[in-house]
């Protein structure tokens, strides 16, 4: 299996789907000649031309609004919102248009579009360029939320997202673009709504998303040295959520830590924890621990940003407090 980066995985998913399906096109700010703010769409303009790789003005409202319109009219747009933080600019288009059209129209419409956007802190990009806002989207019925953590997952899931007939928000943690990993050769896809067990363990389940999957795997190494084996579960999709895999794991281990980079309060972790309490209460041998960022905007200074970000030590401490 070839080793490629997270960024290359997304790029190749886009290429493959564009080659396969002429209805697929991408649009967004600087996605063309510039190749995307982070370089994800490099080479697409050359291969597919300006009809299918559309550089837009700075106009998020229109990017998403137009995507909704195009999707309703039968195309399969893949708009890019450069930073997830800018979703605020086009919330109406996401929440009131894309999400609800099918339902409001009594199932008579479908909106097959995939919004790609970059989340996450760690670059010193401060409060308006670093957020992880997946919980906002996961709260809106009608939207699917995908948050991969490895190149292989990113590629397989992006392909499924593009092929999905529903609006999907595909969230890419910007600190992971450089992470490499092996990716299956040839065509493949990963169904939306299937969690993946990134490491097996018997003593506690750690449900982690995106960058935190990597922190959890690092924590697993540390804990293993002390004889504690954690199972790292990556839901990969937050909507729909693979409850079964999570519950299964908790049934096995009896202990659950949920970690995400987003602010803990009101985060997806709360939803997962609540789900486990509701549906797997009897599996629990200890209280559930949630780990997330503190309730504050993301600071600029590197030392503050480091303090802000949840990490390996938090996971180690949380697990140890349970076993």
């Amino acid at each position, binding site marked *: 299996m070839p080793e490629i980066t997270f960024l290359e995985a997304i790029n190749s998913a886009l290429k493959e789907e564009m080659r396969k399906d002429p209805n697929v096109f991408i649009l967004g*700010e*600087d996605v*063309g*000649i*510039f190749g995307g*703010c982070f370089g994800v769409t490099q080479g697409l303009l050359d291969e597919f031309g300006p009809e299918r790789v559309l*550089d837009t*003005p*700075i*106009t998020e*409202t229109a990017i998403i609004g137009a995507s909704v319109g195009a999707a309703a009219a039968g195309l399969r747009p893949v708009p890019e919102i450069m930073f997830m*933080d*800018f979703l*605020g*600019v086009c919330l109406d288009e996401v929440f009131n248009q894309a999400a609800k059209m099918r339902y409001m129209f009594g199932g008579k419409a479908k909106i097959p579009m995939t919004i790609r956007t970059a989340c996450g802190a760690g*670059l*010193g*990009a*401060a*409060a*308006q*360029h670093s957020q992880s806002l997946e919980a906002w989207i996961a709260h809106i019925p009608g939207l699917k939320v995908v948050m991969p953590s490895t190149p292989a997952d990113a590629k397989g899931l992006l392909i499924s997202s593009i092929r999905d007939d529903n609006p999907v928000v595909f969230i890419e943690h910007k600190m992971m673009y450089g992470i490499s990993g092996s990716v299956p050769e040839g065509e493949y896809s990963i169904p939306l709504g299937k969690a993946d067990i990134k490491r097996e363990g018997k003593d506690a389940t750690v449900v982690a998303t995106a960058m935190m999957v990597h922190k959890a795997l690092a924590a697993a190494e540390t804990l293993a040295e002390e004889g504690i084996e954690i199972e790292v579960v990556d839901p990969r999709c937050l909507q729909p959520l693979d409850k079964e895999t999570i519950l299964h794991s908790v049934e096995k281990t009896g202990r659950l830590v949920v970690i995400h980079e987003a602010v803990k309060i009101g985060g997806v972790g709360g939803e997962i924890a609540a789900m486990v309490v509701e549906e797997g209460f009897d599996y629990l041998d200890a209280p559930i621990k949630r780990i997330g960022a*503190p*309730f*504050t*905007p993301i*600071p*600029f*200074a*590197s*030392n*503050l*940003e480091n*303090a*802000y970000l949840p990490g390996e030590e938090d996971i180690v401490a949380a697990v140890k407090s349970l076993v």
Partner: protein
Amino acid sequence: MTLSKEKLLELYKKMITIRLFEEHAVELFANGEIPGFVHLYIGEEATAVGVTAILGDNDYIASTHRGHGHLIARGGDVKLMYAELLGRKTGYCKGKGGSMHIADMTLGFLGANGIVGAGPPLAAGAAFANKYRKDNGVAVCFFGDGASNRGTLHEALNLASIWKLPAVFICENNMYGISMNQEYHQNIKDVADRASAYGIPGISVDGNDLFAVFEAAEEAVKRARQGDGPTLIECKTYRWRGHFEGDPTVYRSEQEVETWKKKDPIPRVKKRLLDLGVLTEQEDQAVWDEIRKEIQAGIDFAKSSPLPDESELLEDVYCD
């Protein structure tokens, strides 16, 4: 009103300060001392300095991601700016905001902004406050050609026009929104044309000509203070550096950059000063040297400043 000789010299110094501040920021960024993004203002100095020259104490400014020049022109402290760029406790925002969020409320400076196009409605609101308080103040909003496509600008212009707000909208048309040339991102040549849709004056000036910018701003601010409502001024200019530090600028030619470098706004002011006999070549050298020292002092201050304490992470989220 024409600029007095002293005022002119002061504006000249501000332009040099901006230039040197940014040139040193290039170095600091390259040395890894500045986290995150920096968007530099080199080449556009005449616009910020020309506009702010006319402003008084009660006036507000809404800035952009490319805001260092706006704040220096407004009288910002380079020490506190560098400290903020380096994420120090002593910085303008205690290290919490960084380059993209520098603000100085004592100067009515409502902050740089990480969201393109966020400024115009904020400026409209500040202008409303001026009008409400009848304090004769105006609000100035800087925004780019790229931002001129945001709905926020149009909504703000409309609101300001119907409410006759004392606001001045300055479009810094540097021909690009990141990689996108104006030619591709809008179907007009002059952003100023958009004023007609709101029934307000719109003019285009050479943004690299301090005097042209000043004159246009003077007129617009006068109108605003008189209660005649907002004006849209488009300053045509050019950023010498990439969109942000690290941008390989594949979207424009070296030749284009060279052409614009010949239109450097700073020597144009210097020439006028020499002509007026306000400045000699020798004195000019001293001016640059003096500002260089000031800049170095600012950097030294920043570098010797402590990092914010981790305990400050949770402070300033809410008022007490």
